[in-house]
């Protein structure tokens, strides 16, 4: 059992739920500050996957035998948990995918036949490659144009410029909820309302938002919302595409075969209904079950309490980093998540990353799959600390000490 049903957020107890945190790296206690890349897994998730394979595994949906029925029930129960977690209107709106990238590709591919050469797709400067390249490819296939909404030096979207870009030719606005590099949280609800006034459909890349704030897709009124299980303390290889039911019904299938089929003859094929229409082939059943368990875990420890802890560590870290004279923050958005990017004068991020790792600190360095954003700031990459609720202020102190060592050594 996770250390659940606690009224008080006890970080020492919470950390015990994550077996991986209890280890040394290069002789120092592991400090895991790479949560934007992937979060660690609570024992409850690991146990659920193990239990599924030990007791319940079979293929889903088609079997009449007991194991298949159990596997199907567990798989569909996870879909229900996801639907409830993000407040979707029904489980038909929850498509299981491989991850955020797969979810975005699904929409971009499926839209091909409905996009004209005169159409425009709008993205933003701060997008991850996964929310750029699928749209570039859609434009290449259809002759449509890709427009990019700019940001300011603080890493905030320039809303007026975005509004100017949106027009009657814009078919899709695809933007991130939270920037994986800058930590900026975009005001997506207002942006979605703005886009809908022009009948523009909006896809939100929720990869970095999903584990760090409450998501209510009906309140946001987004048309599509994409996220990955492994950034929500669940397994890798499972993701979600939320889509409004009427829009998903209009979309062409993405891949063909297996569960997405209702009836096949050599002359024609009838596709299955939602959500199976977009789930070709045997899905990642164990990972879907693990994702459901991850959601249960987060609910048991209370997401709001988690976010509060992340905010404490983020604020503390920002204050400490600002005290270091040669550090430049990349991204100073007022509304930010638990992601902090920075550069150090005359020292390349990679060298810092190696020194941090020797002190047991796992942080990501490089372009974070946002090369156009690096071009905007005219830097090769950043050093990125991304926190979760299991991180502490004393871990931040270790990071700051390691950064000071690095500066003395390499500067």
């Amino acid at each position, binding site marked *: 059992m996770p250390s659940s049903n606690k009224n008080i957020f006890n970080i020492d107890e919470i950390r015990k739920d994550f077996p991986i945190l209890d280890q040394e790296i*290069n*002789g120092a206690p592991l400090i895991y500050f790479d949560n934007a890349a992937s979060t660690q897994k609570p024992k409850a998730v690991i146990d659920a996957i193990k239990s599924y394979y030990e007791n319940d595994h079979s293929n889903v949906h088609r079997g009449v035998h007991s194991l298949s029925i159990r596997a199907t029930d567990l798989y569909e129960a996870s879909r229900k948990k996801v639907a409830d977690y993000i407040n979707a209107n029904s489980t038909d709106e929850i498509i299981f995918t491989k991850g955020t990238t797969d979810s975005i590709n699904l929409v971009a591919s499926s839209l091909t036949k409905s996009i004209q050469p005169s159409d425009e797709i709008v993205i933003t400067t701060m997008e991850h490659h996964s929310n750029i390249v699928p749209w570039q490819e859609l434009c290449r296939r259809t002759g449509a144009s890709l427009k990019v909404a700019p940001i300011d030096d603080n890493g905030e979207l320039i809303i007026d410029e975005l509004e100017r870009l949106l027009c009657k030719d814009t078919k899709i606005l695809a933007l991130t909820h939270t920037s994986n590099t800058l930590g900026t949280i975009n005001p997506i609800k207002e942006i979605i309302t703005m886009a809908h006034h022009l009948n523009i459909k909006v896809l939100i890349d929720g990869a970095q938002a999903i584990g760090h704030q409450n998501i209510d897709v009906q309140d946001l009124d987004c048309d599509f919302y994409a996220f990955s299980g492994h950034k929500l303390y669940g397994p890798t290889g499972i993701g979600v595409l939320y889509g409004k039911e009427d829009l998903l019904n209009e979309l062409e299938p993405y891949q063909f075969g297996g569960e997405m089929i209702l009836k096949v003859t050599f002359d024609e094929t009838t596709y299955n209904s939602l959500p199976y229409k977009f789930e070709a082939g045997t899905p990642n059943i164990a990972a879907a079950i693990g994702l459901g368990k991850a959601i249960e875990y987060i609910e048991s420890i209370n997401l709001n309490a988690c976010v509060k802890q992340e905010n404490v560590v983020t604020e503390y870290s920002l204050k400490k980093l600002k005290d270091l004279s040669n550090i430049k923050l990349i991204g100073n958005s007022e509304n930010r998540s638990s992601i902090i990017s920075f550069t150090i004068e*005359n*020292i*390349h*991020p*990679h*060298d810092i990353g*190696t*020194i941090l790792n*020797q*002190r047991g600190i796992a942080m990501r*360095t*490089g*372009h974070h799959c946002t*090369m156009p954003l*690096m071009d905007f700031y005219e830097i*090769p*990459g950043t050093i990125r600390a991304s926190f979760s609720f299991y991180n502490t202020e004393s871990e931040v102190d270790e990071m700051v000490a390691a950064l000071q*060592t690095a500066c003395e*050594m*390499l500067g």
Partner: protein
Amino acid sequence: MNMELQNLYQKTMIQHGNNPLNFGKPQEYEHTEEGFNALCGDKVNIYFRRMENKLINFSFVSVGCIVCKASGSLMTEELNNKHLENVATSIDNAMIGIHNGNLKNDFFSNDLMTLNQIKKFPSRLKCALLPWETAMRLINNMKNNAR
């Protein structure tokens, strides 16, 4: 301070990394090639001229880490004025030596031995190899174009 880390960032590495030799785009060059590490976004440009059978004015520009710049600095020192017929073999041997951590000062300069430490940091091998791989591609392109 961790000893392995000290060995990696020893004096030679820091000197060549922070103040690389043969650094900058030369005014005159005949051959150039760009190398890119898609994993981290690091970039290297290699330049040289051919004079009879020797390669001269070997220089480089890099937007990269200390390891990448030091490696480029040491490489250009090593390869400048080398006979064309020996260059590819030198690059090959250096890349194998960096990979295995067994560069020998019978063949290479003492300073180049600093790159033997990279083996203990596998995630940094690509940084050290990028200038050499780019130079090798440039040599091969030049040979192919001459045919």
